[in-house]
């Protein structure tokens, strides 16, 4: 009996070791991808901050005209852009952002624009109407795609097909911490700073309406790209952490199993000796 169990334990150790090799390799791949993604996030952050600040400055400074982008309408239809990953094995990354988005969407007439394979799969399985499934690869989406999507969304918003646009993504706070978030893109929300009235007037070249018509799609595209960069970095960070934990667990299990294996082996030897001694 002891012989069978040492063999079993040996097999388990072997399979655990190969699992550990895989998780270790995945961790290293994620770590190297994370470095790139992190550099890109840090590079692009000032852009979104400026874009956001400029837009909210304009919104708060602007008193004399009303752009459709600024006025909240009675919400009948909403669009949620949801950014998730293309692959699993990233800890809670995909489920956290999807859960949050679904919670926000409750009781609304929602169309979803999923980005990333996991998001597409999720909303297809839950039979949520989707705008398009063409962005099933979050990793391949580039700036141009983002601006294309933004233009389409703005057109839909202006034509009254949708009344609000939100985006669900994951904030890359640090390598160890990522928080999912949902943000309203359209209509524009006045910044908290907007409370204090700005006295100065702004010149719009060529005209305020034209400026808004040209700038808002850029803004939406920029925000989209920013959210995508954040999400990608968050995905790699989450995967790295998850795989690190998996490798550690594998180590622990191997140590545990090795102990059991040695005990079983020793027990078998002792038993054999006892049998020999008893027999002679």
């Amino acid at each position, binding site marked *: 009996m002891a012989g069978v169990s040492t063999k079993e334990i040996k097999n388990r150790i072997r399979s655990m070791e190969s699992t550990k090799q895989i998780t270790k390799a995945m961790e290293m791949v994620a770590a190297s991808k994370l470095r790139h993604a992190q550099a890109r996030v840090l*590079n*692009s952050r*000032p*852009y979104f*901050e*400026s*874009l956001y*600040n*400029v837009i909210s*400055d*304009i919104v708060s*400074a602007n008193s004399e005209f009303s752009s459709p982008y600024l006025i909240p309408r009675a919400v009948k239809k909403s669009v949620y852009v949801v950014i998730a990953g293309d692959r699993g094995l990233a800890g809670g990354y995909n489920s956290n952002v999807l859960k949050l988005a679904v919670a926000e969407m409750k009781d609304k007439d929602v169309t979803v624009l999923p980005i990333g394979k996991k998001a597409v799969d999720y909303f297809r399985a839950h039979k949520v109407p989707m705008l398009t499934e063409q962005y099933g690869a979050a990793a391949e989406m580039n*700036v141009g795609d983002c*601006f294309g999507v933004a233009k389409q969304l703005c057109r839909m918003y202006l034509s009254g097909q949708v009344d609000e646009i939100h985006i669900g993504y994951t904030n890359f706070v640090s390598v160890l911490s990522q928080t999912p978030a949902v943000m309203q893109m359209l209509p524009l929300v006045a910044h908290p700073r907007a409370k204090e009235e700005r006295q*100065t*007037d*702004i*010149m*719009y*070249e*060529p005209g305020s309406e*034209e*400026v808004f018509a*040209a*700038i808002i799609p*850029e803004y939406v595209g*920029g925000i989209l*790209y*920013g959210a995508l960069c954040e999400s990608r970095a968050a995905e790699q960070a989450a995967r790295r952490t998850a795989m690190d934990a998996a490798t550690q667990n594998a180590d622990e299990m191997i140590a545990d199993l090795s102990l059991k294996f040695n005990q079983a082996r020793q027990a078998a030897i002792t038993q054999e000796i006892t049998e020999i001694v008893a027999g002679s």
Partner: protein
Amino acid sequence: MTPFSLKIVTPDGLKYDGQVQELVVRSTTGDLGIMAGHINCVAPLGMGQAMLLIDGNKRYAACIGGMISVLDGKVTLVPTTFEWADEIDVDRSERSEERARAVLADKASNTTDIRLAEARLKRALVRQGVAERK
């Protein structure tokens, strides 16, 4: 000339943050020159060359898309792409020009393709024009 502070930020990072004496960018309606003490202003950018006068030296760049804002004397340029003259990859832009011209010459191209090709051609020409000025 009195300098003013200018910040240029693109999705690829901060391109410039400092004092300049003069800035000329191509807006959607034509060239827009900015000097110190400019009125608060917001304008969308077109495709064209940007000129910065830094300590009396002119620096050129290809500046495409995005917007410029002047608020309380602070100028923020938020273009979609911004490349200094010496950063421009001329070979790539020439290849891009060829591709665009091929699409435009092809009578079978549909309207979307033509529009994209026109934009690409224009970008390529702007880049090549700026690259000559380095």
